């Protein structure tokens, strides 16, 4: 099955999904995605003291106001509303970049203001749209970069899970895709070196760490080296944004997943003239925007991901 088919299958699943009551819980194991109903999930030991959940929000593009979504603040606020409505309060939020459209202070301010309504700690990685200020990323790093290395990479531990935030949107080369760079790769190798292979790992970065569609730059040139360091771990979940749609792939013990945007959808790779914003009828927009909820259950190989729309 190639990536394209996989995408279509996933979209098929998602058609019958909604937030309240009828959702499907995606678990990834054995190389194939499977889904169980939320009722079954409630009967399973999800949400027990040993496990925890967190959220991924991506590509809020605050400041974008073109036809594909004239009010990205409103849809971002709706996404936060979905967070507040979750039955189990997540421990924190990962924002996988493109917080803003143009890295302007007022855009960051607006985004922070709205995210604050969720009342949760937020961990950031920059998208290429967040490093556009005169200082080439200074605005982002001044705000979110405290304690990070280089262009903003870092790691932290939460209830035994190791989270790694990577930056693959700076120092990009002509004709290339996303890039991690030698310094960050060296740091990653060291960061992972002392850890037991049984430590569950979550890696998050803006641009996909596997090649979703090379002609549109949807991949990371030197991701293979990073994935090489991750290979020995029994459970690795890679969460990305950038492409404003859900795609997934499982390779060995590594599960890759991209989240929807809260701002506007983009076409499937290669379908359409460019990866630019996809304009859909207004009544369809919210069914193509959303957030991703992740649940970690101790003893389970895979982190379970639920993609919910704003519709």
């Amino acid at each position, binding site marked *: 099955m190639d990536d394209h088919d996989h995408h279509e299958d996933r979209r098929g699943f998602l058609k019958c999904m909604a937030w309240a009551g009828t959702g499907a819980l995606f678990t990834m194991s054995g190389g194939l995605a499977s889904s169980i109903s939320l009722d079954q999930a409630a009967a399973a030991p999800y949400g027990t003291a040993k496990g925890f959940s967190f959220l991924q929000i991506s590509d809020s593009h605050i400041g974008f106001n073109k036809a594909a979504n004239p009010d990205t603040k409103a849809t971002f606020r709706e996404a936060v509303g979905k967070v507040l409505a979750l039955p189990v309060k997540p421990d924190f939020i990962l924002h996988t970049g493109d917080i803003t459209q143009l890295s302007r202070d007022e855009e960051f301010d607006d985004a922070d203001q709205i995210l604050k309504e969720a009342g949760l700690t937020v961990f950031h990685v920059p998208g290429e749209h967040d490093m556009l200020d005169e200082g080439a990323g200074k605005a982002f790093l001044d705000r979110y970069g405290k304690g990070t290395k280089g262009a903003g990479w870092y790691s932290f531990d939460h209830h035994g899970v190791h989270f790694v935030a990577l930056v693959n949107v700076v120092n990009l080369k002509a004709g290339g895709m996303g890039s991690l760079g030698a310094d960050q790769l060296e740091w990653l190798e060291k960061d992972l070196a002392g850890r037991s292979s049984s430590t569950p790992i979550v890696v998050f970065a803006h641009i996909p760490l596997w090649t979703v569609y*090379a002609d549109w730059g949807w991949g990371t040139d030197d991701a293979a080296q990073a994935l090489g360091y991750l290979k020995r771990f029994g459970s690795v979940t890679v969460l990305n944004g950038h492409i404003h749609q859900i795609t997934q792939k499982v390779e060995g013990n590594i599960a890759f997943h991209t989240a929807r945007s809260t701002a506007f959808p983009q076409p499937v790779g290669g379908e359409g003239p460019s990866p630019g914003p996809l304009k859909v009828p207004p009544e369809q927009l919210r069914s193509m925007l959303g957030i991703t909820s992740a649940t970690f259950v101790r003893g389970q190989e895979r982190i379970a991901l639920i993609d919910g729309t704003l519709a």
Partner: protein
Amino acid sequence: MTRLPALAGALALAFFSVGPAVVTPVAAAVAPVPQTVRIGNFTFGPTVLSVPVGTTVTWINEDDIPHTVVADDKTLFRSKVLDTGDRFSFTFTKPGEFGYFCSLHPHMVGKVVVKPS
């Protein structure tokens, strides 16, 4: 639009190659016609632009998404971020082939071929 100056450049070159005794090349006497590269659908159009030395090239972003125009060596020229409708201009004063790209979407590449006058 873009063919005329290229042709003028080629003609100037042809005059030179015939020999120094011939007429003064016309293209050298008049300022080269400014050229435009349109950025649309995540591509530079035209992708390859041939101009005589001294030509000012202006890039216009017509996409809904910001782009940049950065020389491959990242130093010869480097625009600020170009939002929809924004422009960036650079005057090419030396002959040669100058590749450039969008530093946000580096799969977007283009080239300006600058011919001697």
